[in-house]
């Protein structure tokens, strides 16, 4: 029997600490080598840490929400060396234990330990237990409720039942749910729920940790410290739509498809030199406003993990294709979690767009310490009066918010009116 102390390893990118966002195991659980044990969120990424050994978890050195420093104790395992594997020696636990125990004395050179450790690991046959992708889980609370026939169909279709919501009682996944999921190409989860006699009494308590906590803190900071004023306008994008269609139709294969966003980005870059007070950062503790001549546009991006604001830098130096491509790159990186620190910082102005769910209007919250934010809504055909006649035009609403401490009402309105002019006469963007 032996205690195995596992410390938070160096997870790269100069990260010195991380927040525990999810324990995959409980004290008393027996874990196998390579089982997931904990999710640690650092400034920019969430990393799942696998178990370095097989054993029983005897102690956690932190709760969900706690910060842990690299090199500090994370988990203690009790490893039973006496009964472990008589047929094949497993050298790995011993190999790892030694360097980690040494580490107790010197806290600093964690990185060194790590690099020393890796070549020592002896190549092993792929452990059979970890090679299978677990499609359904059949143990205890977490089991997916579905009949054997539904489970078989899902496995054959290589679908993960745990992400399909069931419409049956207690969330049981029925054949119909699977049909609906497959028919929708995996975008819709399950058939509409039907009501059954079972009363729903459960509540779901979710600890606000990790990215959600960071989002919450940032929102509070923005909303509590910045006196927002919001301003709305509608923009006739009929001409812009024609231009967009034409450009898309004639684009090269290696050019991205254009949405409205790149045009708006280009227009902002064009008009911003006349509205410098809006492209600024306000350090409200030191009372300094820094106006930027570079246009670094933050693009609010919804991801599975929550809201991210990746940044397209120096839009003023790009053409429309470049800005579209760069926007796709950074938002894609934010979505799949590969965005670098640089991709996620440095914006001077933020655009938020809900895309298909754009709605009519919103009151966007300024991305502190910026002073302006622009919200884009869905363009739709509307009857409008033009030259005394009712005609059908394509109309897009924009909502904007400004830090009223820095940006006066007239200045904010002027920016939006300039933008309107650009978008209604899109040739101006390129002049």
């Amino acid at each position, binding site marked *: 029997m032996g205690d195995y102390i596992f410390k938070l390893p160096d997870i790269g990118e100069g990260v010195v600490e991380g927040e525990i966002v999810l324990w995959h195991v409980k004290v008393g659980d027996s874990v196998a080598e390579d089982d997931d044990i904990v999710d640690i969120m650092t400034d920019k990424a969430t990393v799942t840490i696998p178990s370095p050994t097989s054993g029983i978890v005897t102690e956690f050195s932190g709760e969900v929400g706690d910060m842990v420093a690299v090199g500090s104790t994370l988990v203690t395992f009790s490893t039973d060396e006496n009964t472990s*594997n008589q047929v094949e020696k497993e050298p790995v636990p011993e190999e790892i234990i030694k360097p980690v125990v040494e580490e107790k004395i010197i806290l600093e050179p964690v990185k060194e330990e790590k690099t020393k450790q890796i070549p020592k690991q002896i190549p092993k*046959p792929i452990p059979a237990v970890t090679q*299978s992708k677990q*499609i*359904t889980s059949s143990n205890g609370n977490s089991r997916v409720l579905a*009949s054997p026939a539904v489970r078989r169909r899902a496995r054959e279709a290589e679908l993960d039942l745990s992400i399909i919501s069931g419409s049956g009682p207690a*969330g*049981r996944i029925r054949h119909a749910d699977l049909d609906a999921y497959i028919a929708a190409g995996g975008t819709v989860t399950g058939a509409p729920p039907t009501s059954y006699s079972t009363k729903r009494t459960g509540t779901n308590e979710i600890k606000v940790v990790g990215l959600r906590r960071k989002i919450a803190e940032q929102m509070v900071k923005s909303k509590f410290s910045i006196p927002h004023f919001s301003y709305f306008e509608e923009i006739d994008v009929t001409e812009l739509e024609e231009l967009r269609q034409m450009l898309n139709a004639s684009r090269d294969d290696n050019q991205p498809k254009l949405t409205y966003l790149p045009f708006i980005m280009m227009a902002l870059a064009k008009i911003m030199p006349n509205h410098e007070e809006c492209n600024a950062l306000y350090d409200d503790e030191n009372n300094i406003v820094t106006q930027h001549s570079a246009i670094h546009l933050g693009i609010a991006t919804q991801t599975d993990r929550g809201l991210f604001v990746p940044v397209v830098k120096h839009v003023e130096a790009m053409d429309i294709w470049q800005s579209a491509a760069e926007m796709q790159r950074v938002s894609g990186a934010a979505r799949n979690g590969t965005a670098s620190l640089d991709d996620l910082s440095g914006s001077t102005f933020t655009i938020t767009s809900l895309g298909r769910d754009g709605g009519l209007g919103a009151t966007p919250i300024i991305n502190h310490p910026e002073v302006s934010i622009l919200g884009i809504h869905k363009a739709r055909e509307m009857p409008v009066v033009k030259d005394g006649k009712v005609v059908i035009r394509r109309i897009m609403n924009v909502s904007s918010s400004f830090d009223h401490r820095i940006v006066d009402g007239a200045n904010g309105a002027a920016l939006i009116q300039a933008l309107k002019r650009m978008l209604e006469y899109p040739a101006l963007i390129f002049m």
Partner: protein
Amino acid sequence: MSENRKCQVLIVGAGPGGYVAAIRSAQLGLETIIVEGDKPGGVCLNIGCIPSKAIIHAAERYESLTKHSADNGHMGITINDNPNLDMKGIVEWKDTIVQRLTKGVEALVKGSGAELINGWATFSSSKQCTVKTNQGDIIIDAENVIIATGSTHIDLPFMPCDEEFILSSTGALSLQKLPKKVAIVGGGYIGLELGCALSKLGSEVTVIEGMDSILGIMDKEIRRPLEIWLKKNKVTVHTNALARGSKIKGKGASSKVELTFEKDSEEHKITVDKVLVTVGRSPNSKGWGLENMGIRMDTSGRFIRIDRQCRTSAPGVYAIGDVAGEPMLAHKASAQGEMVAEIISGEKREFDKVAIPAIVFTEPEIVSVGLTPDEAKERGEEIITGKFPLAANGRALTLEAEKTGGFIRVTARESDHVILGIQAVGSHVAELHGEFVLALEMGALLEDIADTVHAHPTMTEAFHESVLKSLGHAIHSA
């Protein structure tokens, strides 16, 4: 002279895991060879499940005949003479059933197109083995291997089974004469099933159990009726008692065994005709070249380590049944065997069973499927339970099945009524278990069972009522 053979699927061991795997893989068009060192059917058919159930049934019959031949008879039926017990006759009758089934298995395997080779396989690498047969050695190279070597009873080192005085379950199932006194070392399900049967046949039975209760796999409430039955039927149970040794006393036909055991730090001695040792089973991982296959064992070092598809650490080598881990139950092995054959044929399968039913054929019978209330609570579930006594079930009364104090108990999650486990205890309850397992596999809610019509008069109504009880509205219960 040795013959060389090749096949797509090689199965070692023709027990309930292996023979099912062989039939299924042949059905799927795979060239299949199954090697068996003994008779097909494994422990289950030859010296386990089936023969024990035959003896148990015979014992039940004898017990009821004894009641009818008592002074006032029973239920209006009186037999004027005493029934005669011929142990040899019972064993012969049991053997005819076993033979019929093992022949049946052999015919099914052959009929499916799989080839059954009788001999002992020894592996030289993960995919190659040499089978010693009466006709000479056969070297088999297989694309896929399914290890289904099963398990063997565990001997006590200080009193190994000689099958004459110290019996394993094998010997106990082939008794030529009913022993007057029997001591059973190990109060698990195997010992207790045979203990109940021997007691019904008229043996004086003593159970020596090392733990603080018999049948530790079941919870206190569910094993209570069995404990009462044992008491009523004068079966002596010593718990926290450890067998220490045995001595053969006397000579020839009158020899007896003196068994020494320790209880409360005191040494006790009892003299019996036979000692039955049922202290557990051990996987067969030795004697057939496992060490040459490069296969990883599990953390206990006893079982072959497998994943959810029964794959071992050697590519193309699978392990199923007792040799691949708990629970060591025939039906688990069969289900794994069927699945592995399908995986080899390219189908996507995974062993994702919600529950593996466990049944103990004691008097009364005990069934457990899924979680017990205690287990559910340990997992942090908020639960509701419903318990319905067989004494309130009409059919149970007509079968005298209520006499052993049985009941059915259902456990469900309080919030959404998903059924988490079902246990039953009582005479004849084993046959009720199919619905219990189906309920768990289908993800049934209490309401699913409540809204299913259960035929009257049957004992299945008791399950329905236990569910109604958990919902607070049982009909036939106060």
